[in-house]
């Protein structure tokens, strides 16, 4: 294990972490949804 603190104890604002995840999560969710819609054709098409 390294010397640096890589544990989950943090002083970073949870809002910043949430914002960062939203920034990548929202486009990814859009892509997943669009793909699920397309994939549904396998079962209905």
């Amino acid at each position, binding site marked *: 294990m*390294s010397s640096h603190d890589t544990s989950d104890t943090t002083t970073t604002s949870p809002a910043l972490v949430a914002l960062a995840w939203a920034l990548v999560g929202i486009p990814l969710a859009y892509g997943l949804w669009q793909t699920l819609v397309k994939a549904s054709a396998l079962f209905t098409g």
Partner: protein
Amino acid sequence: MSRLDKSAIVAGPGYSRWLIPPAALAVHLSIGQVYAFSVFKNSLVESFDTSLTAIGWVFSIAIVMLGLSAAVLGTWVERSGPRKAMLASALCWGLGFMVGSAGIATGQLWLLYLGYGVIGGIGLGIGYISPVSTLIKWFPDRPGLATGMAIMGFGGGALIASPLSNKLMAVYDPDFVSTEPGAVASASALASTFVTLGIVYTVFMLIGAALVRVPPGHGDDSTAEHSPGTNGALVRASKAIRTPQFWFLWVVLFCNVTAGIGILEQAAPMIQDFFREGGDSSVTAAAAGGFVGVLSLANMLGRFVWSSLSDRIGRKPTYVMYLGVGLVLYLLLALFGSSSTFVFVALAVVIISYYGGGFATVPAYLKDLFGTLEVGAIHGRLLTAWAAAGVAGPLIVNGILDTVGEPGNLVAADYRPALLTMVGVLAIGFVANLMIKPVSEDHFDHDAHAANEDRISTRKEAVR
């Protein structure tokens, strides 16, 4: 430029390591667009009045450049740190779109090759490896989970880019309806779409570059405390490529990717051919398109799920699963795939999830073998296996299928020789994985190793 250096981006006390995966994802979601390049194919063929093969070269050049730039620039990325690398990647990727757009607008295909293929491809290679070593250093306890999250983004990027590009083309060319078979967008709409994507991706990647930090103590490689491999190994990239372990792993990655491409390359015509009787297939074109979507999801989720699992069961057993179980599944697909669409889809889904998992787990495997000293640079060199498989996979499958006819007009039995060939390819990878043993001490960087040991004991004493 000093604000970009590794020493300038050392995290302060308490900086959350959970900001690093989104930073990595911002890059990987952007460069993952490359796997959605096919949405432009019809429009580009029409725009340049050329063949599908000539347009296909754009993607091939980009993937080859990805492998080459990752291999050649891996050491630079490792030494410069993730922020400088992400910035370079963002600029190359954005510039690639701009130059490509100029090529489309002026009807100069060579500019598209140079822009998207060469410049963009360099951005792909730098971007792909830029966060990997940093993630492993932030998550020494769960390297598979950390790299799995980022590399999942590469799969996810295509899921975003495909519908987004279709929407942009429709905005710039109101006559373009992506759902109509053979729909093509105008050259000006294509050029505008490229410019828009270039700007959006550059901004998105720069946000990732702004967020990323290296862990405390990692501002200078010569004084950083590195996580050694499982047997205490700390090996430099120049030495790693002289070890049998590196080349066995190269073969493992090559075989895993080659076998996956065997299905991915022909997915839509393949499912229709497997269920063809008397000339007609019971699987519609829409359902075949849905199958491609299902495989994209399996590819993406496999990257995260299997790579995370490897933290628990170990890297070697995980590749035993990818290659050994994958081999059996491929065999079942060849022999019984046509028995029902459920069986066919279920087998293909697991096989493609293993394909994705193979990409995502390999950085953690390298960390176990060589330690974190130059793991990013070693990973870059290993990615030449991907570039090679990207050429070999389609060559093998298309070469075999060409002898029996054209995909889209075949039956299940016609695929058997190609699928059984892939069983053989996976068997070679399986054996190569079994041959991987811990790296000999002869290859360790003894100076770095001794200095690292000193730093670890000093820290332990300080803690007491």
